């Protein structure tokens, strides 16, 4: 087992009996949320941190499953002595509703039909996720999160938490996010969805009933996604125009970057068995995210009742959710004289930077979590 890791972990299930009425008008009569926890909840219940995942993430944030070499997706930042220190905090990772890693989603059985939900699973929004995650909070007996933390789509959930349930969190750490998607962001998502839906194996989303999965479409969607997570600079450095062999003047894989993208797509669609309907749902949740829409499209007004203190972090080479987008969030908080700190981290890793080691990012993260910890201990 690796050092500074939470070690072996097992997921748990939180069953929710109350129906969820989604923003999209759907109803999920009852549902399961799969989650993992690391560290110990203190007696006062004041040291709990919720980690929200991004597009393709899940509840397996840190540690290892028995027999699995690969750790959770945020192993670099969650563990004993790491920025989100599991010796101090009780850390909760949850798979969002509509996901494909154990929480109720399109691959689950729809009680009304006894068949997989498939494309009939209600369209999810970030607001719905906050409602469902709040059920998990109650299930765990936590009155108020010390912090809700997330990157990308996860950061959007942290922001929505602060707006929708202001007294249920003391801090929001919003990393590499945006207050809403741009036309370009939505366009990328739409191309990804079209790649999936035009795969002959898609069968209008009922592929499971046909015993197939739209692997090619999903792989294409992932290739496109991956492309937008990296910076031009980094791709140049990593691959340049390097060839696998020599130019063959054919449509085979010739450049290393082609090989890399195909590998990523293939891995996602085949090895990780990501569900195509979940991918569609997640991209839609991104597109619909717009907390200001409930407040006359005025983000400052949306932030007026926020009680959480904010740490907002962006990365210089992230062109998917650029620093300017994070600054929109900061500006709206400043308009309301809210407590907010902002760091723009120098990185060449594009949007992916929020997952990767970086001394300044770690420094900021450490310092802010230290402050949260001081508050927790001051209350004790």
């Amino acid at each position: 087992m690796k050092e500074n890791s939470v070690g072996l972990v097992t997921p748990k299930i939180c069953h929710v009996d109350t129906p969820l009425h989604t923003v999209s008008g759907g109803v999920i009569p009852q549902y399961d949320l799969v989650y993992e926890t690391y560290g110990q909840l203190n007696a006062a219940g004041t040291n709990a941190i919720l980690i929200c995942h991004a597009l393709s993430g899940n509840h397996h944030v840190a540690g290892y499953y028995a027999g699995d070499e690969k750790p959770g997706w945020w192993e670099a930042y969650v563990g004993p002595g790491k920025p989100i220190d599991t010796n101090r905090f009780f850390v909760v990772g949850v798979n969002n509703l509509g996901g494909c890693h154990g929480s109720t989603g399109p691959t689950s059985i729809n009680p009304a039909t006894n068949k997989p939900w498939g494309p009939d699973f209600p369209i999810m929004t970030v607001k719905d996720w906050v409602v469902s995650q709040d059920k998990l909070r109650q299930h765990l007996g936590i009155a108020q999160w010390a912090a809700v933390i997330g990157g990308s789509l996860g950061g959007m959930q942290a922001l929505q938490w602060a707006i929708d349930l202001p007294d249920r969190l003391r801090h929001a750490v919003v990393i590499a996010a945006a207050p809403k998607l741009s036309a370009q962001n939505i366009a990328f998502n739409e191309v990804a969805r079209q790649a999936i839906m035009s795969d002959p194996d898609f069968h209008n989303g009922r592929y499971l009933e046909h015993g197939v999965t739209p692997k090619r479409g999903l792989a294409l969607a992932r290739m496109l996604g991956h492309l937008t997570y990296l910076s031009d600079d980094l791709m140049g450095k990593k691959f340049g125009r390097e060839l696998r062999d020599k130019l063959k003047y054919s449509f085979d894989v010739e450049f290393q970057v082609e090989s890399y993208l195909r590998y990523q797509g293939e891995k996602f669609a085949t090895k990780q068995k990501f569900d195509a309907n979940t991918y569609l749902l997640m991209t839609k949740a991104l597109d619909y995210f717009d907390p200001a829409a409930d407040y006359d499209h005025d983000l400052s007004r949306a932030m007026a009742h926020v009680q959480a203190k904010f740490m907002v972090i962006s990365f210089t080479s992230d062109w998917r959710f650029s620093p300017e987008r994070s600054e929109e969030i900061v500006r709206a908080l400043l308009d309301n004289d809210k407590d907010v700190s902002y760091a723009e981290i120098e990185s060449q890793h594009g949007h992916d930077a929020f997952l990767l080691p970086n001394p300044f990012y770690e420094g900021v993260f450490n310092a802010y979590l230290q402050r949260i910890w001081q508050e927790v201990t001051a209350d004790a």
Partner: protein
Amino acid sequence: MLNRQRLLSPEFKLISSWIEPGSRVLDLGCGDGTLLAHLQESRRCSGYGMELDPNLVIASIENGINVIQANLNKKSLLDYFDEDSFDYVIMTQALQVVDRPDLLLDEMLTIGKQSIVTFPNFGFWKNRIQLMFTGRMPETDVLPYHWYDTPNIHLCTFKDFESLCAEKGIAVVRRAVVNQQHETTLGMKLLPNLLGEIALYQIQRKHPK
């Protein structure tokens, strides 16, 4: 960013004494956040620091202040704040490093009711003597850099600063002239531009907007 450590405590004490308790404060180039943290603790102030240097941003977070990482040479303060958002906008030992001190002063007095600005006096006698007798750019404890690597690209004397204020319709509410130990001598009072090493100015618009 700057050689601020040695100036730190007495200068900040003097500034603190000028600030009304309970004020909203913005500290530009807030360094490690010491001043704002002090104002929060001792004078019930609230507000933000702005800083460019990554390590100082981390130090500011450690010191418990709200810090916004920003490059004031690339962004306008108005990108972040509305008119009259603060009682005081403070900038210590940083006026001389920005691209356009004159424009920044305008912005500071737009988003703040008053400003407190401190900077090294280039008219200090030691600087004059070095230039006169060695024929070279002064290098002193307060200005420890070479001419080619100094971040202090817009050095000025007290007279220069006050004439800029007059031109811009900025009123000097209060002024303190001190040496490096932050003492004020009789000589400094009589001949500030010659004998004063560091200036602290409290300024505001002559004609409120």
